[in-house]
């Protein structure tokens, strides 16, 4: 299965029955899969006139209480930012998939990781966050997509699965296990289904608060929710970090390449580990505390000019030197390039 199809299949497995989207490369297998498969399970696929319309259809469907998905790629996600801000402000659950391509502007269609800032720091206007999950292989893409629906419902917040064109187009075996929603998800007693279903009590989905004190209270409540995410939803993987002199920090596609670079370094006698954030927001700050004592230096590798790098600097807080290696424009770094970076950090060469 292709990565894009695996994500789409996982969404349906997780009970998603509504998809609204607009074609854009390299994520077209997701809407194509949904248009083919959703009607078979009683679901609905709508091809919107734009990403702007698609995200607002998501708003309406989420406000009506549905599990709903949209997917796009970088320029399309930019167009959705207005709607994502409204969805976060109105506290609606939905899942967004961004199969990143290179930018800025129309950029190119090759893989990139240059939407990290946009994904993790809010992205649209106002004070808010989207919970961001970054899979590094297709089984993880399946698992995280299913988890995304639970987390969206749990926090009444948009959750983004952030991958890139490489993962979207990659083929790997995946297994779709029978899915059960997480226990204790709150009832959607806020959904607009008509007052005949709510004992006559009017329900309104809204993000408008004209009185500054009310709006401040609302935003503070959102941030209590984000603080809870930071306490309980942080996910990351440490690989080979116990004896590592250098810890590479990478997510998604670059973490896969870092892993093979680590094997090559091992053969050269270099001790290198990997710290792989799985949640990009909330960022796994505490993971750095676990490895910083034993580590001499960090090497951040991204398919961007250095975006996650800022969060790594916050996490390391000056305790160790941090180097950065990035390729951009749609170029995927090779493991040899990463090995060379490690060698330079280690004083030129292997043992």
């Amino acid at each position, binding site marked *: 299965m292709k990565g894009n199809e695996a994500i789409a299949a996982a969404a349906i497995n997780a009970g998603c029955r509504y998809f609204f989207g607009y074609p854009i490369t390299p994520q077209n297998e997701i809407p194509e899969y949904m248009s083919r498969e959703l009607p078979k399970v009683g679901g609905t696929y709508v091809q919107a*006139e734009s990403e702007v319309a698609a995200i607002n259809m998501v708003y*309406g469907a989420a406000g009506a209480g549905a599990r709903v998905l949209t997917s796009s790629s970088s320029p399309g996600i930019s167009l959705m930012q207005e*709607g994502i801000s409204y969805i976060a402000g109105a506290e609606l659950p939905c899942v967004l998939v961004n199969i990143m391509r290179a930018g800025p502007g129309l950029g190119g269609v090759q893989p990139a990781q240059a939407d990290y800032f946009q994904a993790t720091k809010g992205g649209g206007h106002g004070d808010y966050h989207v919970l961001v999950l970054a899979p590094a292989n297709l089984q993880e893409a399946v698992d995280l997509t299913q988890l995304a629906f639970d987390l969206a419902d749990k926090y009444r917040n948009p959750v983004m699965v952030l991958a890139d064109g490489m993962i979207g187009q990659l083929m790997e075996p995946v297994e779709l296990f029978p899915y059960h929603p997480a226990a204790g998800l709150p009832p959607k007693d806020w959904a607009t*289904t008509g*007052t005949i279903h709510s004992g006559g009590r009017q329900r*309104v989905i809204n993000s408008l608060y004209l009185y500054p004190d009310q709006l401040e209270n609302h935003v503070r409540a959102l941030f209590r929710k984000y603080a809870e995410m930071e306490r309980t939803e942080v996910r990351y993987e440490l690989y080979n970090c116990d004896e590592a002199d250098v810890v590479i920090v990478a997510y998604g596609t670059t973490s896969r390449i870092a892993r093979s670079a680590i094997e090559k370094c091992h053969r050269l006698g270099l001790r290198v580990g990997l710290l792989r954030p799985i949640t990009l927001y909330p960022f796994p700050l505490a993971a750095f505390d676990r490895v910083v004592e034993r580590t001499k230096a960090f090497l951040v590798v991204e398919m961007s000019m250095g975006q996650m790098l800022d969060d790594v600097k916050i996490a390391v807080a000056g305790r160790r030197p941090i180097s950065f290696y990035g390729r951009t424009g749609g170029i995927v770094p090779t493991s040899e390039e990463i090995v060379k970076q490690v060698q330079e950090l280690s004083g030129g060469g292997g043992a």
Partner: protein
Amino acid sequence: MKVVYEKSRGLTDVPMHYCPGCTHGVIHKLVAESLVELDVLGRTVAVAPVGCAVFAYDYFNCDAQEAAHGRAPAVATGIKRVHPDNIVFTYQGDGDLASIGMAEIVHAAMRGENITVVFVNNAIYGMTGGQMAPTTLVGQPTTTSPLGRTRLGQGAPLRVCEMLATIEATAYIARVSVHNIPRLNAAKRALKKAFQMQIENKGFSLVEVLSSCPTNWGLSPVDALHWVEQNMLPAYPLGVYKDLEGGT
């Protein structure tokens, strides 16, 4: 005592914020009465716009979602596709629908989306203080066309009903006015017909209501109603532009 008139239970008791003489209030009343008389209020979901009617969710006594500027037809699409048994309507002004939301309204109509649109056209941006709208008349001064709108450069009025009536999957498209009592009664009949179309799953219905804006036109409420009759009616002919059932 016999009750000869009462406030529709389709409206809440929240005092409306509309300016004196504005016709939004009476249009709200006609919509609310239509929903009650068709016995669908309890399963109705309103979609409020950005514009003067941004607080519509406070006034209609039904569930509601507040949409981003112009996006109400997309939000309504999401709601209706999830719950086809709900009656879903958008309430939009001319800036919301005919400017920033033109793509959303055209494509909701193109899909034959089974929703109802109440389109309030007062030829000006009301909430933001009287700027030029796509429906502003040629020669009409506004705060952003202080010398009067020019046909070339600023453009002539966009006629939404005429345009949407060319779209195959629309079910009912009508333009009405509320500047006098007979017109107001006709407007109510058009709104009920539009909602009836949705109840019968006939597809997209839209009623454009010509409305006055005394505040931003700089006229008294009475003079503003005369202005609708004398200036807007010639530019925006009233009538049924599309009716799947063939009636008028």
